[in-house]
């Protein structure tokens, strides 16, 4: 177990290093200097940046300094917003994005599992077809399109929900719906297929023969095993929810990290792009690592000393 964790940890560090190096290449490969070619940058910003990045130093020294500043979580100042560091933006945006992300995951996991169980219990019945049809639609409709459709129907036509910003639970409904539908559909399909498989197992027949109530069989015996694949795809789902927040925050004008990120891309605010990318990647890679470890801890059948892990 310890060996597995340390191996995964090493892979995680290499992955992070690649991302950090990629962002460094981004910084040095932008035509001219990313900082002084821009009209909107004023003298103070320029001075701050040059002090921060040692732009006249040779590349390997710059690279070393960059690694050092990333390791100490210092992403430097923004080029477009004077007196703002990337850390300021992250500090302001991250809690909001995290809130949106957590609510989305909770909604997606709970509703997806419930939908999957119902579909599996009514296998090949009307409810099953409805639920799976809904799931395929959920996977097929991109979240940004769902978001605009929701705004048009619920905010413009019916006027029952506020169209944008992030200040009350009512404001959360549409962004969370738009963001959670895709992951929910994926979880529902996965839960359904593993539930169907688990329900044919001998120990379920045994439980039934014992006279346990169907309710108990599903929740105490079947669901535990049916949920393992859901845990394995949590990493991928987290990544898709996280990238989803970029557009959703943009569309709903939610002042989260994703909105700053998209703005920085449109304004070519390189330090913000680099800082947010490194931060997002570190966050995601850490989450993937934790999901992997959690999977091993949850399922006693997983053996860690197996070579190659395949």
């Amino acid at each position, binding site marked *: 177990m310890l060996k597995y964790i340390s191996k995964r940890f090493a892979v995680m560090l290499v992955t992070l290093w690649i991302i950090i190096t990629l962002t460094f290449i981004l910084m040095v490969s932008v035509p001219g200097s990313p900082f002084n070619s821009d009209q909107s940058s004023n003298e103070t910003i320029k001075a701050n940046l040059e002090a921060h990045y040692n732009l006249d130093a040779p590349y390997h020294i710059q690279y070393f300094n960059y690694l050092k500043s990333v390791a100490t979580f210092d992403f430097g100042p923004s080029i477009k917003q004077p007196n703002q560091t990337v850390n300021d933006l992250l500090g302001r945006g991250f809690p909001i994005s995290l809130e949106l992300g957590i609510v989305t995951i909770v909604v997606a996991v709970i509703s997806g599992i419930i939908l999957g169980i119902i579909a599996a219990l009514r296998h090949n019945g009307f409810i099953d077809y409805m639920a799976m049809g809904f799931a395929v639609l959920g996977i097929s409709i991109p979240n940004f*399109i769902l978001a605009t459709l929701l705004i048009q129907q619920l905010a413009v036509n019916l006027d029952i929900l506020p169209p944008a910003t992030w200040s009350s639970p009512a404001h959360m409904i549409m962004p969370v719906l738009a963001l959670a539908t895709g992951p929910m559909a994926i979880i529902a399909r996965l839960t359904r297929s593993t539930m169907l498989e688990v329900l044919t197992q001998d120990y379920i027949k045994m439980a039934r023969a014992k006279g346990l109530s169907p309710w108990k069989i599903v929740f105490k015996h079947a669901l535990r095993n049916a949920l393992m694949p859901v845990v394995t795809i949590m990493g991928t789902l987290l990544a898709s929810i996280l990238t989803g927040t970029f557009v959703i925050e943009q569309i709903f004008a939610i002042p989260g990290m994703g909105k700053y990120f*998209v703005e920085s891309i449109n304004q070519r605010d390189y330090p913000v792009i680099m800082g947010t*990318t490194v931060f997002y990647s570190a966050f995601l890679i850490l989450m993937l690592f934790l999901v992997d470890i959690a999977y091993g801890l949850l399922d006693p059948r997983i053996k860690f000393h197996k070579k190659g892990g395949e």
Partner: protein
Amino acid sequence: MKPANEVKTAHSPSQIPDDWFSWKDKDKGEAETVARPSLSYWQDAWRRLVKNKLAMLGLAFLVLLGLMAIFGPILSPYQVNTQNLPNQYQPPSAEYWFGTDSAGRDVFTRTWYGARISLFVGLMAALIDVTIGIIWGGISGYKGGRTDNIMMRIIEILYGLPYLLVVILLLVVLGPSLSTIIIALTVTGWVGMARIVRGQVLQIKNYEFVLASKSFGTKSSRIIRKNLLPNSMGPIIVQMTLTVPSAIFAEAFLSFIGLGIQAPYASWGVMANDSLGAILSGNWWTLFFPAFFISFTMFAFNVLGDGLQDALDPKLRK
């Protein structure tokens, strides 16, 4: 117990009279004939795919979409980028079948140009993924041992990279254009395909027919091409049909955050992004058509992929 034993000994094989037996009336020759016509793997898969109504609906939609992407613009008297400001936001009518957008451009024409871009991006990304994935996964799985170990370590690391973040980063560096978007989508996109190919090759290379081929002295490259790949085609095709919609989604997503195809091209993502403002003023058609086609194309590829997965899986063969 005892009487039964006696019966048994009384009728030991040599003592059983012949007239106790009779030929079963079934004609021997007839019993040996195969009731169903013999079908090749692909014929059988196709037969099962045709039975899947949803998958066929998807296939039909995609064929139609492909035809419209080629011939659609010819049907329309308007050009993609001709602006006609007095005709801004015309609702769908006999003159403008899908209406016009904020610059008075014909949405019908732009939709089919968008189909060209989206399908091209999706298909190219899938094709490149397959090519790299087959080479990488094939070598990794076939060679095994140290080679496999190193190649898989690289895959493991690439797999951990957040896909869309890398794509965004690359596009910021390379600048968005049709070719850079395809490059960015495939730089880490091939990893999934390589894993699938490797898994298949690992499994198939231990079968007897491969051993037989080896014992004839067949070269490795020929074994990979003639034995291993044809037999792992099923999962590869399924993965391909699922790569296309994710590439189409990624392209639309990139357009949305300002890194999509640039003018004069118009992709569905660009069209949807352009009409975000329009939706608040009630000009629904500017968003509806690109949104509908993105969603339905993804739907079609997804159901086709699901159908193919069932049809190509030999375990589900009936």
